[in-house]
């Protein structure tokens, strides 16, 4: 009996091994599959008087070839790669949108200046004026389109985030269900391997979405925690995640976690990894900051051109009207606010504008304004608030102590950016006043430069400057106060009524310079020349429009480049971690082929043992017959 029993146990063992090898071969390409191996042990021996006799082989268990440490490394690397990949992908899309140099804002601005030069050449030429109006319209459209692209990408990312949240919730729910089944086994050491494979596969999938620390409990259930420490899966309970707009700032998306208790907003910067973290970083950081930069440019351009327009006269002799209109600044209040104030802001200095929105808090006495781009705060005792070239005013409602508002400044300017001049005759090419050197002057004095520097009601009032000698002059005319005996040195700037004048040469006693409206304002090009000169001035935070736009494009490019480098690094890490894990857990078909031969031979040998036992039994029967 002993030989048959031993042969049968060997047959059973070899069969189990062949089955496991077959399963390994079958699942060689199954995601999440962990190679299995049959663990055998000698059967308990029996004492026969002549020593202990072996009783065959026992199949102890089918073991997964798995290393917990290597698996964790894969989770970590997977979440890092997913975050970098998601951010790099979104940035790459943004970068491609701004790559077209011939159709971009920069090219449109160059075209505007070419048309402005024609206006300066012949300010009354209707063709030059209408071409200029078209170019300004194109520039405005390009800015508005760029902003709507930012918005479009933001909306696409929001949809993507919502989709990922749906998938994540399914995965978390499935993990909780697996925990439930594993828990029901009550700690039995024989656990279905497919369930553990599925568990580990899901942990990896969850890590693609958000970085999750996995703790495997003694009953093989998993406890999963987000990077913030919040539980994602505990036992049979799964948290639900949701992507929601921050009620205090509609430009910010965030992840909200709800378990059995009330929903908890998750600080995106503490998520630590996963595509949701990468997309949130892009959405709330890269996209927001780039859009702020565009808004800064739009606000600065509008303010500089409108300001210069207002200093000139149009073809109808009227003061120049606004050329560009920016999107309006609005505010949004926190849910916890007692007050219902609405704020708006006007640009007071385009050059001082910053690429940022602001947060305003009222403590009952002071208004604290925080620049969101860099967190710098300033305190103000009263409204309106002057900050960074903006004047923030109350647009309605009332502020209550403890209130918090987000003021969308730079994020608003480029939206609906439009050209509002209308009639091309309204380009203010002319200056409202021009200098004339007295016809009978005896000295050599001539005009070196003359410019309108500010809006003054008396700018166009006729003013006569009369030199009483080479070193003194007197002034007569409305708005000047008619000073006499003013000291003069060559190169001095003479400023009255919003204009400023610099002379060349030496005046003689009795010489006059008169400032008066030009004889034919339609032919005067002084303000057109100033409008053209804006192209060379640092009107965007101290940079020219061209350089400001170049910075925007290069900034996006640099972010995309850095994100792609990060992605390459984390992909290499994930690949090496996966390889290390798969060296242990992956199936090698050649190895399985070799095992197949080995176990087949074992099976044949075991079968031979059984045949031998039968032949022995037959021999015994023959002997007794």
């Amino acid at each position: 009996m002993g030989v048959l029993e031993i042969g049968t146990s060997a047959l059973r063992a070899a069969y189990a091994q062949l089955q496991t090898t077959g399963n390994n071969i079958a699942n060689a390409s199954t995601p999440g599959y962990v190679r299995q191996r049959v663990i055998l042990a000698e059967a308990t021996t029996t004492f026969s008087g002549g020593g202990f006799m072996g009783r065959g082989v026992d199949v102890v268990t089918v073991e997964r070839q798995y290393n917990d440490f290597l698996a964790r490394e894969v989770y970590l690397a997977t979440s890092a790669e997913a975050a970098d990949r998601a951010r790099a992908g979104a940035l790459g899309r943004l970068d491609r949108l701004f790559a077209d140099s011939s159709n971009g804002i920069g090219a449109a601005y160059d075209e505007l200046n070419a048309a402005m030069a024609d206006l300066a050449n012949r300010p009354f030429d209707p063709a030059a004026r209408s071409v200029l109006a078209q170019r300004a319209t194109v520039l405005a459209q390009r800015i508005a389109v760029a902003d709507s692209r930012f918005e479009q990408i933001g909306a696409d990312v929001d949809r993507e985030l919502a989709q990922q949240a749906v998938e994540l919730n399914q995965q978390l729910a499935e993990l909780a269900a697996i925990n439930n089944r594993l828990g029901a086994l009550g700690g039995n050491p024989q656990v279905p391997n497919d369930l553990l494979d599925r568990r580990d596969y899901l942990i990896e999938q969850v890590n693609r979405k958000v970085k999750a620390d996995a703790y495997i409990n003694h009953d093989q259930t998993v406890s999963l925690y987000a990077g913030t420490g919040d539980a994602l899966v505990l036992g049979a309970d799964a948290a639900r995640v949701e992507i929601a707009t921050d009620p205090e700032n509609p430009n910010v998306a965030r992840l909200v976690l709800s378990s059995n208790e009330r929903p908890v907003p998750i600080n995106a910067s503490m998520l630590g990894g996963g595509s949701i973290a990468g997309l949130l970083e892009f959405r709330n950081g890269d996209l927001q900051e780039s859009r702020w930069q565009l808004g800064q440019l739009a606000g600065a351009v509008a303010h500089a051109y409108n300001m210069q327009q207002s200093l000139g006269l149009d073809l109808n002799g009227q003061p120049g009207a606004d050329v560009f209109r920016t999107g309006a600044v609005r505010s949004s209040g926190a849910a916890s606010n007692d007050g219902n104030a609405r704020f708006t802001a006007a640009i007071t200095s385009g050059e001082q504008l910053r690429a940022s929105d602001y947060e305003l808090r009222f403590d009952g006495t002071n208004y604290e304004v925080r620049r969101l781009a860099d967190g710098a705060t300033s305190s103000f005792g009263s409204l309106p608030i002057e900050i960074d070239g903006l004047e923030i005013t109350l647009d309605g409602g009332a502020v209550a102590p403890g209130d918090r508002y987000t003021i969308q400044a730079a994020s608003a300017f480029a939206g609906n950016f439009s050209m509002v001049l209308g009639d091309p005759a309204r380009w203010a090419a002319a200056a409202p006043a021009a200098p004339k050197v007295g016809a009978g002057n005896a000295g050599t004095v001539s005009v070196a430069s003359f410019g309108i520097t500010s809006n003054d009601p008396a700018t166009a009032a006729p003013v006569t400057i009369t030199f009483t000698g080479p070193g003194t002059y007197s002034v007569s005319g409305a708005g000047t106060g008619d000073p006499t005996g003013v000291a003069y040195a060559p190169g001095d700037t003479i400023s009255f009524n919003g204009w400023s004048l610099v002379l060349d040469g030496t005046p003689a006693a009795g010489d006059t310079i008169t400032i008066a409206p030009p004889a034919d304002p339609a032919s005067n090009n002084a303000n057109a020349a100033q409008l053209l000169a804006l192209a060379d001035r640092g009107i965007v935070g101290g940079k020219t429009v061209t350089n400001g736009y170049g910075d925007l494009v290069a900034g996006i490019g640099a972010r995309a480049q850095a994100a792609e480098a990060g992605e390459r690094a984390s992909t290499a890490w994930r690949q090496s971690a996966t390889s290390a894990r798969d060296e242990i857990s992956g199936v090698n078909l050649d190895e399985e082929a070799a095992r197949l031969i080995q176990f087949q031979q074992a099976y044949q040998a075991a079968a031979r043992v059984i045949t031998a036992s039968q032949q022995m039994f037959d021999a015994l029967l023959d002997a007794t017959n």
Partner: protein
Amino acid sequence: MIRTSTASAFDRAIQSMNSQQARLYQLQQQIATGEKLTRAADDPVAAAQATSVRSEITRIEVERRMVGFARTVLQQADTALGTSTDLMNMARDLVLQAGNATMTASDRASIAAEIRSLRDELLAVANTRDGSGAFVFGGQGTRTAPFVETAGVVQYVADPGSQEVGRDVRVSTSLDGHAAFMSIPDGAGGQQSVFDVLDAAIAALSDPAATTADIQAATQAAIDGIDSGLASVSLLRSTVGGQLRMIDQIESSLDNSELDAQARLTDIVGVDLAAAISEFARIHNGLEASMQTYAKLSTTSLFNYIR
């Protein structure tokens, strides 16, 4: 012992071929377009420089157009001032002729008529239009004739001075007609125009009752006035000549700047063809080798030998 998972070995081989192929397509695009920057992320700093250089090239073209326009105006001014000089010299000769004691009153009257037509021609030249409908001697700018004759007296109704364009060096697109034709000392501390001088000569020569002394005084005053006028015109003409020479210099410096900017642009965005093609060949070889080894490896299996 290092085991290799068959599935991940295949994955790695596919990834490696994918990345080589992606780089090949990128290089192919660079070689085809001649530009190495297909998007800002390829080289953000270069992208910013390229934006700025492209804008500079447009700016150079704008500047060239502006000085080109000024050149046409100044050339017209130069011609007009030359004609004015000729007309004034002819008038001067006639005045000298009329001062000759052998001249009769009727001789002087016919000379006066000749001077009259020269003076009218001069007025027309002073009101020369440029191609765009403005006036060459329009001072600070005017759409109507700057020299207007009212009750026989020519007046300058535009603002004296000039209109100028240009970024660094400014050149005139409208010249000071007042300085050219209207500012001749009248001998009494005031100013008169060249037209006033000619009108006075015409009046004196047309007067049948004029005495020899009257004629002599009148011709002397006319000669002095015309000489002053010639001096004013030639002063402006030399300014115009100076500006035309300056425009030549500006244009040649704009040409240099544009060449320089184009060269910089090529440096920044242009692809180094030799390097790109050799990298293409290298990666192409690598990809072919990967494919061959992949094909070999994938057919090597122990299962092939189990019969």
